[in-house]
């Protein structure tokens, strides 16, 4: 018996070890595995480095990619075209700040040539002297400067006025949308609970939510398992409730902490004249069982679980999730299910806003090590090539003849690649988001339509299209987000006074959950101002006026 058991264990271990060396042979998007290896790719006339350039980089691997994802065709083709070899250490976003700290602790020699700041922050890296400002090198990257554009320079600059990173640019206004179960709304209408199909006013939204709460709309015999409004906590809890915040006319920054008042003052959202009303209403919604009871712990994946589990009535998420979860529910036999993307929640004063996708995101920083090794100019020239027409084509469409063809002057992706929307397109390595680049609207729209015309899309896909397309349901609702300015005071106090256990986000959640009254919340906010939050506000306002 013991011998058999040990033999089985040994085989299991051997099997797991061999799996490490296995390579994927799966064909994705109609492309065979390693299809790019023999591709006929010519050296670039615009940029080819003399003598090979080896660039070490540390970056963040997003969770929509497989953990073993190495960029597919992208990096080997870059090397063929430009002679630049990237040696990238991909890390997950969880604990990335600690990874950066460890790299810094190893000293200058331990630094890569290019580093993504992630949660460590550009200001933190600059403060350490780990990265170099690019202001004096802008003439080496004219394509990048042109791609950012004059009117978006303030998104590129840091709070100290310097430019530190090569950006990634997405010229598409939205990516997320409010979505709700249209089939449940129809059911409630049939039952006479509501008299509309799509909630459009604050009163209608509330009627829909309360209707869901009080009725067994998913028909499983339990009329208490549906969650009227599922909310996601975000990375560190700062962003929780932001969809509702917008409904109260508070046009917040990406982390839902800062806003610009009508008089142009940059401040924290808690100083917005509507914030008290927002907090009072939201507290009531929580007490009434409308707001997700797990809003402080629910991560993105948990939110998707509620969508698949047929208990989510409405949420704010990636528009694509409306399609995938509707189709998932269809596959489970919930044939009339439909997550319908709709305009953002309209608040009591008629406000209905949605954060515009940040077009320019600061991503890749050049380190002091690259400077010490004399590599800065070549690396910047490479990034300039990446933003050239040739570089943009490779990033968006891959290799001509293999992944796309030019039809009537328009680069057209192979149908097989886009038939699953963005999924196969990204799995192949296109729009290699972790590395960054310039994502063209045309490529984006081809993925969005999945090779179909709008008329032929199924209801799930139509919903997705409606949520994402700039001409869809969110048209006219987008607002440009004010930045979160990483000033000295912000860096000094964020951990303690914003997201810390006594920080303002904790107090906000405690207030929503009824552990703290609205008046007590504001009293404690004033206390936090005295402990340093006022400095954060003042320095932020000063920097905002400077970069604006």
């Amino acid at each position, binding site marked *: 018996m013991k011998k058999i058991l040990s033999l089985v264990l040994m085989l299991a271990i051997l099997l797991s070890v061999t799996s490490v060396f296995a390579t994927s042979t799966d064909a994705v998007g109609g492309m065979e595995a390693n299809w790019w290896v023999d591709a006929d790719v010519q050296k670039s006339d615009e940029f080819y480095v003399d003598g090979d350039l080896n660039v070490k980089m540390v970056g963040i691997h997003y969770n929509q990619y497989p953990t073993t994802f190495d960029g597919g065709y992208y990096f080997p083709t870059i090397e063929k075209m430009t002679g630049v070899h990237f040696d990238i250490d991909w890390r997950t976003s969880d604990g990335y700040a600690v990874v950066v700290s460890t790299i810094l602790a190893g000293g200058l020699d331990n630094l890569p040539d290019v580093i993504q700041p992630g949660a460590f922050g550009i200001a933190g890296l600059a403060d350490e002297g780990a990265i170099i400002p690019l202001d004096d090198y802008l003439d080496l990257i004219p394509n990048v400067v042109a791609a950012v554009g004059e009117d978006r320079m303030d998104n590129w600059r840091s709070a100290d006025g310097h430019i530190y990173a090569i950006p990634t640019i997405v010229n598409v206004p939205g990516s997320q949308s409010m979505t709700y179960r249209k089939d449940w709304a129809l059911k409630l209408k049939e039952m006479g609970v509501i008299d509309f199909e799509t909630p459009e006013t604050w009163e209608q939204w509330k009627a829909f939510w309360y209707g869901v709460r009080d009725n067994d709309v998913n028909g499983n015999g339990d009329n208490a398992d549906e969650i009227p409004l599922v909310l996601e906590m975000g990375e560190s809890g700062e962003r929780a409730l932001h969809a509702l915040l917008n409904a109260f006319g508070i046009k917040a920054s990406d982390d839902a902490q800062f806003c610009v008042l009508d008089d142009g003052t940059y401040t924290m959202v808690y100083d917005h004249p509507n914030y008290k009303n927002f907090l009072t209403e939201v507290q009531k919604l929580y007490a009434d069982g409308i707001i997700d009871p797990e809003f402080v712990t629910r991560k993105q994946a948990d939110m998707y679980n509620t969508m698949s589990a047929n208990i989510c009535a409405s949420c704010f998420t990636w528009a694509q999730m409306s399609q995938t979860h509707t189709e998932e529910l269809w596959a489970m036999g919930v044939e009339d299910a439909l997550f319908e993307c709709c305009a953002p929640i309209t608040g009591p004063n008629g406000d209905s806003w949605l954060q515009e996708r940040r077009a320019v995101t600061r991503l890749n920083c050049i380190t002091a090590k690259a400077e010490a090794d004399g590599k800065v100019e070549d690396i910047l020239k490479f990034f300039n090539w990446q933003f050239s027409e040739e570089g943009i084509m490779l990033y968006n469409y891959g290799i001509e003849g293999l992944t796309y063809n030019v039809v009537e002057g328009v680069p057209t992706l192979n149908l097989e690649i886009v038939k699953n929307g963005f999924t196969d397109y990204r799995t192949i390595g296109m729009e290699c988001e972790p590395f960054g680049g310039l994502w063209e609207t045309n490529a984006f729209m081809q993925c969005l339509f999945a090779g179909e015309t709008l008329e032929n899309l199924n209801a799930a896909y139509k919903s997705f299209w409606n949520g994402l397309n700039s001409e869809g349901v969110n048209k006219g609702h987008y607002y440009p987000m004010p930045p979160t300015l990483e000033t000295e005071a912000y860096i000094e106090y964020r951990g303690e006074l914003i997201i*810390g256990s006594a920080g303002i986000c904790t107090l906000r959640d405690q207030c929503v959950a009824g552990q703290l009254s609205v008046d007590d919340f504001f009293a404690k906010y004033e206390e936090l101002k005295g402990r340093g939050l006022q400095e954060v506000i003042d320095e932020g306002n000063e920097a905002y006026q400077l970069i604006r």
Partner: protein
Amino acid sequence: MSTVAKKTKDTVFNSSSMRKRVFNNIWLNRYIYMMVVPVLIYMVLFKYLPMYFLRASLYDFKLLKGFEGSKFVGLKWFERMLSSPELWRYIRNTLTLNSLSLLICFPMPMIFALLLNEVRNKPYKKIVQTVSYMPHFISTVVLVSMINNILSPSLGTLAKIYKLLGKTPINFLSNPDYFYGINIVSGVWQTVGWNAIIYISAISSIDQTLYEAARIDGANRWKQTLYITIPGVLPTFVLLLIMQIGQMLNCVFDKIYLLQNTLNLQVSEMLPTYIYKVGIESQKYGLATAGGLFNSVLSVILVLIANSISKKVSEISLF
């Protein structure tokens, strides 16, 4: 003059013969000393060498710039930490959880070992022992995921049971009243089997003739446990207790950290998690070092107090 010279000569002679004796002793027991080497290396590398960096608590320490490039700030971080109105709440939370743990979790392995010792059916005993060890090998991340999956009020197993019983599910994870309970129960489940090993080993080293003599004297199983087994494991218990008291200001960091959310932070924020968040996550390494040093000093004081109390009460002590 000559007396002094003689004394010096004697001292030199004595110290050289002493050195020889020590060396001979080491050579004689070289294999045992070799077993100590890895532990020594570990202690030096990870416990003593880092002490050099304690001075980071006096700097606005920058990792890349080192001490030379970092600004000297004196006692700024200590002042900042000690003036934080929440510090004492974090200490109180840490002490509360550890006191509960000391009261409930700590004696459990000994009780479990004593109970296991009374099981006469050997195969059954082995199965129970093995099964009880298993949770120890589950990583904390997995354990916390299990806790979340069981306790989630929307999709959790317990919520389903509550609904079957016609009751409204409780949001255990976001209610501060349940935080310590969740920690203690999951802690007992995960550690009781593994921590019982040391007591099982202590029980097995008790002289069997004592039990024979007791049986001849007419002592039943309960009396044998009370007068032989428990006194036999008591020194182990006391030594572990003193060491545990030294850990009163620490916690199972990853578990606490992963179970924290904004609605339970008033009881779940502990000194180590606060130091990690404010120090490491926010890149204030000076503050993190000051916090760590403060924590260590308090821990040493606690160990000294526990040791002297134990010495007086039971004559068992670490030093």
